[in-house]
């Protein structure tokens, strides 16, 4: 493994804890989000009319009162779509913009009101009279399984070895089911899109989206226009977390349709309740498992059925359930394994991408299996984890990719176990519990190994566009979008480093499909891996041109032209400010604009065969959580969390720590207080922050020790040997679920597996306590 040589005299920009590029604009309120952009004259406001039934035929849609409401300009329905009434992301044609004769979830759009004010649009939208004929609604996983298990996407199976006979012949075996809930993204900025019609069918959109190219494609498809006529721009999102990967399509398409038909600019910003009722969430899963193991806790065979509530349409449910299978091993080598996915069709919101993209659900199942083995044998679950870790000679995943990062995993767990004082604390907690009848404490250490790359190989490409102006300032575009993760900051650091100039000379511009085309979603944690490389490629092109120009002009060898600290040293012949060289280059007609491109090497994947190398590398980490539960109410506190996480050589440790901490707390929310609740009619009743509870400030761990792993640069040639960071830390929070489980198990002296499902609300914790007390 080669570390990078540092250029002598160059101030290092990468690997430094630089603040977020918008930090000052954030704290002054100056940062513009889509709804903050100054509104053009004549702007129309939209509101969607939503289905009140989970599954029904639409017998009639009476919009008279809607149309005649003061301020209403138009009402749009399926009949108004000039192109194809479809906004599906994978071309499966299963997601109409407006339902026509059939509604398939409560909240599905039937029409859009176009009005002079947002208030008028909202009021009018409530006046529709819809006659429905109800059809049987399938709302959850058990109901879907019972009704024949219709799927929205073909299932996948991963298989290595003969799992059935490995389990059969194993000395011990356990069968069970783990249930885990979904999760609302709760980006603080709700979905929003503003469309500005241009000449000759052109359409310009400002959209809060992680995937401008897909919005562009969907809008063009809907309006029946060539893609080239549609431009999509996003400067930043107020949070996304996967919820604006495909879910922005609906809002952008509606705004574009209204603008296209009226010739006036149009904006759609749903209120929080509409947003939550309309959009998909993290998939809830029910995973059936069967596992065989030996007396030392080594897992000899494992069999999983991953059933997910996909909702009414495919959306990304196929790749998401695939990724759940890719992580059914978490960090463990199963002797033999067989795992199948079922993306079940239900009459609920179409579930979608959410940080981790199925990976968290795969890992929760894996950790439940570990718990079963540990309680069955009376072992510390950490010892079972260590006995099953990937290692030399046991390094092939269920999808036949060889794990090369097992040494990182082992190093992390050893260091964390020792630095967190896990063993001694565990003993102390057991003793403390003996003397505490009501409050009980628990502790757990869980690892994370997360595969980095889009499993659709084609998505692993990126482009950049870099202009250098005569004053030496740099205007930079790439295909990635900024949603708070600090991508723009990291890419600016990469480019400034490459050109040897200050960070203040590089301005990251709003992501725009006209600048960099055919981009992939900013997703799969890939943002800086892909766009950092593409931007560096562009910077290297410029640098090569400038080097050649300077070498020729001053008659020195190209190798003697050095860019550092805002200056260019041309051997002993010249020492120029970067801007001076630029002006000279311009006068000499050197091209000062370049594109950059990158595609991830080494990866390939054959879904049908279940074989390949879907991931370029793995990002790893581990955490120890300690909690206290109240056995009278099920309430709990997270007392302490220690994290050690692997980001290779960090591009920006401050931003990476931010991702680790934020991801952890978000994962903790998923596994604890965040509960989605639909009533018997299929209405989501947790559709705003008053009923849906994400972690608040005081829920953060009382003691929170977070470290990045030192001394392990990425073994692959990623951007400055860093590793992706967006998603993996979310799964560190699984240690909270298992610390709660450990505390629950104490009421039956740890003789019975707690089998605590998620979200572990106070109610679930109390019910598990009661069940275990009954067994004690």
């Amino acid at each position, binding site marked *: 493994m080669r570390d990078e040589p540092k250029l002598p005299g160059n101030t290092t920009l990468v690997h430094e804890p630089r*603040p977020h590029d918008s*930090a*000052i604009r*954030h*704290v*002054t*309120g*100056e940062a513009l*989000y889509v*709804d903050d952009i*100054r509104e053009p004259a004549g702007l129309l406001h939209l509101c969607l009319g939503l289905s009140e039934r989970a599954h029904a035929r639409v017998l009639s849609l009476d919009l008279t009162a809607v149309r005649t409401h003061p301020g209403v300009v138009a009402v749009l329905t399926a009949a108004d779509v000039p192109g194809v009434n479809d906004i599906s992301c994978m071309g499966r044609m299963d997601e109409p913009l407006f339902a026509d004769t059939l509604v398939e979830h409560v909240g599905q759009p039937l029409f859009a009101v176009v009005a002079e004010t947002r*208030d008028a649009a*909202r*009021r009018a939208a409530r006046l529709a009279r819809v006659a429905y004929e109800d059809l049987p609604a399938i709302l959850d996983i058990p109901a879907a399984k019972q009704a024949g298990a219709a799927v929205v996407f073909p299932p996948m199976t991963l298989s290595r070895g003969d799992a059935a006979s490995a389990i059969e012949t194993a000395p011990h075996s356990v069968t069970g089911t783990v249930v885990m809930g979904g999760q609302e993204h*709760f*980006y*603080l*900025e*709700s979905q929003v899109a503003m469309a500005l019609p241009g000449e000759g069918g052109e359409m310009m959109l400002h959209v809060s989206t992680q995937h401008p190219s897909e919005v562009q494609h969907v809008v063009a498809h809907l309006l029946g226009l060539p893609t080239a006529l549609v431009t999509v721009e996003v400067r*930043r*999102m*107020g*949070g996304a977390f996967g919820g604006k990967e495909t879910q922005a399509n609906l809002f952008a398409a509606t705004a574009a349709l209204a603008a296209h038909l009226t010739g006036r600019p149009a904006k759609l910003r749903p*209120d*929080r309740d509409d947003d939550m009722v309309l959009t998909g969430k993290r998939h809830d899963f029910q995973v059936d498992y069967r596992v065989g193991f030996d007396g030392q806790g080594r897992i000899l065979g494992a069999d999983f059925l991953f059933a997910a509530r996909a909702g009414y349409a495919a959306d990304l449910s196929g790749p998401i359930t695939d990724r759940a299978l890719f992580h059914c091993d978490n960090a463990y080598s199963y002797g033999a394994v067989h795992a199948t996915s079922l993306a079940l069709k239900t009459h609920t919101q179409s579930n979608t991408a959410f940080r981790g993209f199925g990976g968290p659900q795969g890992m929760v199942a894996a950790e439940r299996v570990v718990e079963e083995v540990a309680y069955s044998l009376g072992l510390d679950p950490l010892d079972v984890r260590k006995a099953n870790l990937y290692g030399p000679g046991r390094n092939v995943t269920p999808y036949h990719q060889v794990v090369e990062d097992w040494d990182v995993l082992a190093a992390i767990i050893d260091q964390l176990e020792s630095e967190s004082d896990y063993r001694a604390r565990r003993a102390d907690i057991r003793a403390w519990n003996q003397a*505490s*009848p*009501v*409050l009980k404490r628990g502790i757990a250490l869980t690892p994370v190994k997360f595969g980095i790359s889009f499993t659709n190989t084609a998505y692993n490409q990126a482009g950049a566009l870099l202009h250098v102006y005569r004053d030496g300032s740099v205007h930079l575009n790439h295909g990635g979008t900024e*949603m*708070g993760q600090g991508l723009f900051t990291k890419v600016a650091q990469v480019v400034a480093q490459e050109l040897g100039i200050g960070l203040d000379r590089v301005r990251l511009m709003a992501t725009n499909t006209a600048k960099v085309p055919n981009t992939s979603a900013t997703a799969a944690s890939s943002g800086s891996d892909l766009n950092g490389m593409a931007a560096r490629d562009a910077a290297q092109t410029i640098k090569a041109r400038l080097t050649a120009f300077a070498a020729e002009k001053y008659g020195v060898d190209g190798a003697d032209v050095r860019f550092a600290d805002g200056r260019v040293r041309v051997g002993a012949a010249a020492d120029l400010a970067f801007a001076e060289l630029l002006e000279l280059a311009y006068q000499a007609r050197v091209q000062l604009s370049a594109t950059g491109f990158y595609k991830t090497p080494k990866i390939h994947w054959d879904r049908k065969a279940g074989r390949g190398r879907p991931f370029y590398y793995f990002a790893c980490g581990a955490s120890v959580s300690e909690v206290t539960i*109240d056995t*009278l*109410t099920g*309430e709990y*506190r997270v007392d302490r969390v220690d994290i050690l996480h692997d980001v290779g050589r960090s591009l920006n440790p401050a931003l990476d720590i*931010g991702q680790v901490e*934020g991801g952890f*707390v*978000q994962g903790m929310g998923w596994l604890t*207080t965040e*509960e989605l*609740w639909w009533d018997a009619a299929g209405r989501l009743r947790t559709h*705003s*922050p*008053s*009923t849906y*509870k*994400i*972690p*608040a*400030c*005081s*829920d*953060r761990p*009382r003691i929170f020790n*977070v470290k990045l792993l030192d001394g392990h640069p990425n073994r692959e040639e990623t951007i400055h040997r860093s590793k992706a960071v967006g998603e993996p830390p979310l799964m560190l929070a699984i240690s909270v679920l298992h610390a709660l489980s450990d505390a629950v198990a104490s009421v039956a002296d740890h003789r019975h597996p707690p089998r605590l499902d998620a979200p572990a609300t*106070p*109610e679930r914790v*109390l019910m598990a306590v009661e069940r275990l007390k009954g067994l004690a």
Partner: protein
Amino acid sequence: MRNEVRFLLGDEPVTLTGVDPTTTLLDWLRDQRRRTGTKEGCAEGDCGACTVAVGKPVDGGIEYEAVNACIRFLPTLDGTRVLTVEDLAKDGTLHPAQQAMVDCHGSQCGFCTPGFVMSLWVLHQDGPASPQRVDDALAGNLCRCTGYRPIADAAQKMAELPAPPRDETAALARLQAWADGQTLDVSANGQRFVAPTTLDEFCDLAAAHPDACILSGGTDVGLWVTKQLKRLGTVIYTGKVAGLDAITDAGDHLRIGAAVTYTQAQDALAALYPDMGELVRRIGGQQVRNMGTIGGNVANGSPIGDTPPALIAAGAGLELRLGRGVRVIPLERFFLDYRKQDRWPGEVVTAILLPKPAPGSQFRAYKVSKRFDQDISAVCGAFSIQLDGGVVRAARLAYGGMAGVPKRAANAEAVLVGRPWDEAAVRDAMAALAQDFTPMSDMRASAAYRAKVAANLLYRCWLETAAALPMRLTGREVAHA
């Protein structure tokens, strides 16, 4: 009588006529004044992205509170100074609340950041804050990116940065000059907003307009407007009625005016009943506690309001007035049925009369919700046990979340009275709760959980009064007599 609303926006005097009474401060800031730093995250006072500071003249200075602009009606700002995130940096220098957020990497997506900055700014007025105080000040601001650690760090760090010079003389003078004691009366779009200044005027107005909406804080009424798009017609605001926001010691009881906010009441309640203070601390976020009132919480009649169970257990009375006629009833008799109260047309709640604890009594109140801070109770249990030589002489057990109204557990109380305060009696009372309540299942909890927790809370009350064991998770030291 005055028909124009006057307030300061930063340093700028704003005078509004013909303003629609239910226009929210948030919409006005964003749409009319293009102060787009203040964000809408939920429009229900639960996320804090719209937090602004509202100042009032107090004791020769201006005292600021963090409030949610999304549910704050414009006319209620009359006579105040409103500061938004755009007001904080002076001459290109960030305020310590802003600089600390930058230094601590406290923003990621940045959307919640202006709201956090405003909550921090208000916190900064009081100087260095304990970690506990920081958590309370930030409980009403949600962040989905950072996990809060860097923001909590910024709350500590800002106190170490040099405080900027501040001169509020002109602003204060303006507010004082505006304090004309006149009744504000504005109408537009078929709605009317009246802010009476005396108790008699308030009661007479309410009696004359029995269909009027009494606005006392507006942390629930605000949602009728932003979520249900309700037109309120005539709105009578309690916030300017002289004396209605007073807490008076009346010897054997406290008289809590109907317009006393949670924030104003918290310490006084905690002094008498530590658990009641803790309960109030966990209502909403700081922004909601600054606006919401105890009177509003009671008069609203919600089955899950947090103060009624505790007040009922403590034996509180309710003072109501119809015109000039006053009556006082035991609080539990006010709640007749789901969303139905014993309030005559035109009658208003004027005060809550809270008895001081009787000697030998034990009081406990517990709130159980999915999240500790800023959540609504699944179950709220409050208990007052009067002991005489170890024997229960009287018991008041009141619950929220267990029925359509806040309600006493008559059967369980009957089981306890006259028996020694021991585990056997408590176990019998726990069993008797099944005759008192048939709770329902909803998004907050199942019926089975509610029933189990209701019983367990009574058990906890007994454990806490009978044994000194670690029993609470809230992390607060709640001192009991």
